[in-house]
């Protein structure tokens, strides 16, 4: 096994090259895969296209807002739209997703307001949406932790006795290539495996963990790790929204029917910086980015729609208009987002009363009020 084969470099001997499940080529050509038949209507494809364009626009807008000082930071999903929309649209209402900090596309599929996401990166909240309402857990910043939460949640679904019934559910745990080194992630694999939990491990291998290339984390293709833990693993073209949808659908269905976990490695690329504070020119070559541009997840869907006469110029224009309008609202909403009240710091720390914290809160309130006292004859203390 050469290091190159980890990344699926084109000069890898055929035998060693990991199989990449693909249903739509970068040129927009539909290919069939015996295990993953996918029947999409013209409207389905147009919907997927619209999703992809909109989440890219949300992302671009957030990057711009960060540059303008409106957000403290943003973790861009640029390049990973297909992995997120494909897997996100495979979820049903009962399922529960456990994201990292980069899953804005999945958040969109789960109807989380983009402005709420921006609030987190603006420093207004640490999360702010209701995970139960959306079937979408809070962003987890600490690498890998959420994979265990997703596994435990799946163990709960198992215990509810709903698997195989119409109210069956599964969980999907999102994480990156870097995260696969964490103890938590490996422990999640073990727990999920021995309990045959209804979970899909969705690894977006975007080739980088900040400045560290995949080789710093693994010597075998990541999907192959699943075998050692005792469940199936597969690699999908992460820039192919059709394949991501089909593969995730099937893995979720397996989970919901009691067939246990699957590891999906979505092979993709982080087109932007790690976050807005990162400078990728310090550690990677422009040529690598350029080669991945040719595999753009949106262009290939557009090519497919055009090639098959499934959409006309009017459609593409309309999608642009919708995205532009959305970006405008986002911009305005972000700029006018109020700061939290200082005393909000003390909210939601405990469910039941906590007299000592309350005392601190009252002291702080009095302290703040002392700055607002109108000037009287007596000098302020």
């Amino acid at each position, binding site marked *: 096994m050469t290091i190159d084969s980890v990344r699926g470099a084109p000069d890898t001997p055929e035998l060693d090259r990991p199989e990449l499940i693909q249903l739509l080529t970068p040129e927009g050509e539909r290919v069939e895969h015996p295990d993953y038949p996918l029947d999409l209507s013209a409207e389905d494809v147009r919907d997927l296209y619209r999703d992809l364009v909109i989440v890219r626009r949300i992302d671009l807008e957030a990057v711009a807002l960060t540059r303008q000082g409106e957000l403290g930071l943003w973790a861009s999903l640029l390049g990973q739209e297909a992995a997120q929309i494909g897997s996100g649209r495979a979820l049903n209402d009962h399922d529960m997703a456990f994201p990292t900090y980069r899953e804005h596309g999945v958040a969109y599929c789960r109807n989380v307001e983009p402005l709420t996401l921006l609030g987190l990166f603006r*420093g207004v909240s640490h999360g702010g949406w209701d995970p139960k309402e959306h079937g979408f857990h809070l962003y987890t*910043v600490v690498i890998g932790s959420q994979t265990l939460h997703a596994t435990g949640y799946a163990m709960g679904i198992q215990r509810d006795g709903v698997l195989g019934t119409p109210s069956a559910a599964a969980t999907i745990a999102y994480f990156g290539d870097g995260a696969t080194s964490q103890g938590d992630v490996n422990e999640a694999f073990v727990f999920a495996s021995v309990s045959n939990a209804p979970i899909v491990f969705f690894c977006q291998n975007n080739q980088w963990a900040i400045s560290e290339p995949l080789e710093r984390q693994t010597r075998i293709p990541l999907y192959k790790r699943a075998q050692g833990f005792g469940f199936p693993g597969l690699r999908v073209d992460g820039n192919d929204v059709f394949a991501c949808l089909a593969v995730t659908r099937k893995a979720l269905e397996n989970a919901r029917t009691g067939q246990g976990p699957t590891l999906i490695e979505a092979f993709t690329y982080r087109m932007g910086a790690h976050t807005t504070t990162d400078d990728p020119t310090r550690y990677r070559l422009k040529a690598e980015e350029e080669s991945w541009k040719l595999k753009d997840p949106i262009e290939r869907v557009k090519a497919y729609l055009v090639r098959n006469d499934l959409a006309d110029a009017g459609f593409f224009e309309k999608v642009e208009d919708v995205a532009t309008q959305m970006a405008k609202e986002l911009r305005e909403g972000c700029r006018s987002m109020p700061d939290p009240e200082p005393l909000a710091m003390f909210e939601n720390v405990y469910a039941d009363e*906590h007299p000592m914290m309350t005392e601190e809160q009252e002291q702080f309130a009095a302290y703040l009020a002392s700055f607002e006292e109108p000037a009287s004859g007596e000098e302020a203390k």
Partner: protein
Amino acid sequence: MSTLTLGKALNEGLRKAMENDPKVLVMGEDVGKLGGVFRITDGLQKDFGEERVIDTPLAESGIVGTAIGLALRGYRPVVEIQFDGFVFPAADQIITQLAKMRMRSLGKLSLPVVIRIPCGGGIGAVEHHSESPEAYFTHTAGLRVVACSNPVDAFAMIQQSIASPDPVIFFEPKRRYWEKAEVDTDSADWAPLHSAQVVRPGEHVTVLAYGPAVKTCLEAASAAAEEGRSLEVIDLRSLNPLDIETVTKSVNRTGRCVVVHEAPVFNGYGAELAARITEKCFYRLESPVLRVGGFSAPYPPSRNEDHYLPDLDRILDAADRTFAW
């Protein structure tokens, strides 16, 4: 003499330590080609090679655990934890193994491991990037815990910590990385690692701080001086062991003491200081030792961090309150 930022002073200190001892290694996430997210290890991999500056897999328990193994084999690993909030996956290795192996081996094993942790808030970051976890480590016997506050100390203390035969938790005030000072990089005439320093003499109130809070306290002292109140600011520098002599000498003179740190006051390092000062200076104290710090709530979203962090006003307010008794 050269003008260095605190971050660059650490970089120069690491470089000196690596030049002086081929057993010194640097390891952590993104410390190699990138030079760390704060560039503290900038250029070290280029100059000392990938064998000595290791971009590790993304796993803090793994980083500290393998650093222990390397130390057992005679190396002196300097570990970078990328942000304060990410030290916890390594907590087991630090608390259960690193701190206790010398005693377990009846002194046969030494673990000269330094764990560098950028700490504290004030940089507008998302959750887990602004914490002050020092009390967890000062509570663990077997670890030495230090915190630098300025470029001169950063340059010296990182080298002294690497030279220490014991494990050292080394806190770096991340929002002060860009503060500048004149540093004599040719001299090794340094104050002992575990000594506190009076950084501004004064008469009325002793103010104790470390790490990022020192600068805030110095600013508070300047403001107080304008109102005719003289604050003596002590930079503790070392939290475990604590240089209690320097502290009691000052408090016995001023009779008043305010402790300032970013970590929550409840069960924070200031609680230990207050208790110890009360024991040692009881008959000289004019008022109880007061503490200014974070609240008993998790570190807030960054738009509220200026309220959470001790600022000039809250320090002055506490100094005033010591006169209310």
